[in-house]
């Protein structure tokens, strides 16, 4: 069997648990590959299962059938302990951000770096760089809970990027951004992709849909993933 690099979904099914037929099918037979060096955009109606797919790719949910493979290894089938360790290589932007509101912006970024083996000076440099890229340099010492919605979202994007992950999964990363900052977020994603990351973004934002930075377009309809308009094959 051919080993593919990047994130690969193989015949992925997901249903929320329920008694027999009450189980609600969200995703059906999703098969695709998100290669390193590509930015993939998944669109779809509200409730189509975009966030669920991201959570499956991140190993936060278990598929009911099929598997998610990362660099050829079936990570979705690994026991929790190993999935947790693998997730250190994944940067996630949650739709609801999941920041720690009582600690500062810099400390939120530090949390993402702690499981790694980066030196203290390396951590400081990475945090400083991400805060500058996210236009949050002046707010480094501000608690996340005191920031505006857009600032918190940029902080969440910066947290996903700060450990230079191999896989980036972002759920509506530009939803609260003005045009200038949306371009900034897209630029951050593009920089990470150019450095070799595989990025998957779920969004309805027309600025992302029309962005030339996006390599692959998918559309999620009735739990099935279809190549969308403007889809290109992976480089």
């Amino acid at each position: 069997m051919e080993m593919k690099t990047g994130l690969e979904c193989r015949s992925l099914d997901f249903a929320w648990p329920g008694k027999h037929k009450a189980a609600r099918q969200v995703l059906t037979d999703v098969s695709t590959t998100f290669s390193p060096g590509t930015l993939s955009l998944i669109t779809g109606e509200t409730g189509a299962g975009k966030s669920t797919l991201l959570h499956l790719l991140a190993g936060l949910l278990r598929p009911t059938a099929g598997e998610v493979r990362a660099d050829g290894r079936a990570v979705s089938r690994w026991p929790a302990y190993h999935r947790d360790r693998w997730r250190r290589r994944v940067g996630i932007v949650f739709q609801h951000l999941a920041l720690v509101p009582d600690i500062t912006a810099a400390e939120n970024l530090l949390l993402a770096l702690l499981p790694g083996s980066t030196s203290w000076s390396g951590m400081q440099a990475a945090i400083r760089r991400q805060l500058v890229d996210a236009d949050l340099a002046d707010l480094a010492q501000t608690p996340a809970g005191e920031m505006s919605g857009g600032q918190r979202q940029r902080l969440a994007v910066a947290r996903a990027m700060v450990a230079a992950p191999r896989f980036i999964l972002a759920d509506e990363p530009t939803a609260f951004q003005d045009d200038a900052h949306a371009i900034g977020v897209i630029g951050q994603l593009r920089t990470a992709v150019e450095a070799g990351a595989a990025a998957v973004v779920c969004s309805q934002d027309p600025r992302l849909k029309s962005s030339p930075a996006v390599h692959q377009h998918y559309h999620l309809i009735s739990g099935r993933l279809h190549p969308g308009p403007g889809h290109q094959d992976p480089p």
Partner: protein
Amino acid sequence: MTWHPLTWAFWAAVAAGILLYGIAAVRAMDVFLNWQPDCAEAHQLRREHGAEIASLLADGSFACFTAAAVLGLMGVAVGWHPVVPGAMCGTGVLQAMGSYGRQAMIFWGIGLAILAAWRVLDRLNRRHPEWAATRSAGRMLLTAAPFLLLAVYSSWQALMHAESVPAVSCCAAVYDRVLTSSGGPAYPIRIPTLSFWVHLIGGMVLMVLAIFEIRAAGRMPGAVTAAIAIVWSVGASAAVKHVWSAYYYQVLSHPCPWCLFLPDYHGAGFLIFGCMAVIVMKAVAVWSADSACRRHPQLAKAAHRRRHRSGWRITWALIGFTIAAAGPAIAWRLSTGAWMKDLF
């Protein structure tokens, strides 16, 4: 005895253990019968999730059963003799329990040894993300079931028997054994001498094997270490009873291992037999790691680490056993210039 707090604590631990083990065993049975690692269908993914839960539940059941065994041992050794008429130590309690008491101890020992081997295998399996040894671990978990059921049944019978028995006589039981084991025609070799040499030679061999595990884990078959540890433990139990205990009691003919657990002798039995239990369990761990490594080469690195650690624990437990068992004898020899028993 029914209303003794230790009895209630014992049964509570047993009940919790059975509940957790029962649920884990159902899932382990499914894993054992239907495991298909190359398939990513819904039923196999459910089974993988079930295997993970079974591992956690069985871990809990192992803790509960170990707690039950320790509570049962404490009950026999120091807890229940005041409520058994005529009993002064565990010998009297076991006498009141009839043959069920000894059977229960044997079945608990075997059941826990198998669960300890399962735990090693399961721990090694958890080190590998791709479920290499899940089926073997499921089989090992199920193997413990008959022994655990017999242990629970024998424990129930033993406690019920002890409840209704007339007065016992500890000393009569001990001194009857002295008469039968001290050189009658049925015993051409004296048990104290034989047990002493078995445990001395076995202990030295075990120490060498433990050093092997520390210095070059994986060179010796684990089954050899486990077999020698089991033979050694039998010899060591008899040697403690017939030889070393005399230096604690400071009388020649009182071959009673249970009195060693009493506060009069500072509960030395817990240390002596605790070290023995550690040695046997860690030797079983060496065997389990060795067998896992042979069947699943991808676990070799983790298995060697486990054997290395077990080697250290066997060494420390052997040192602890030697100090606790032979310490009073050496002190006696230094203070009096003579051994209490001449075995040479």
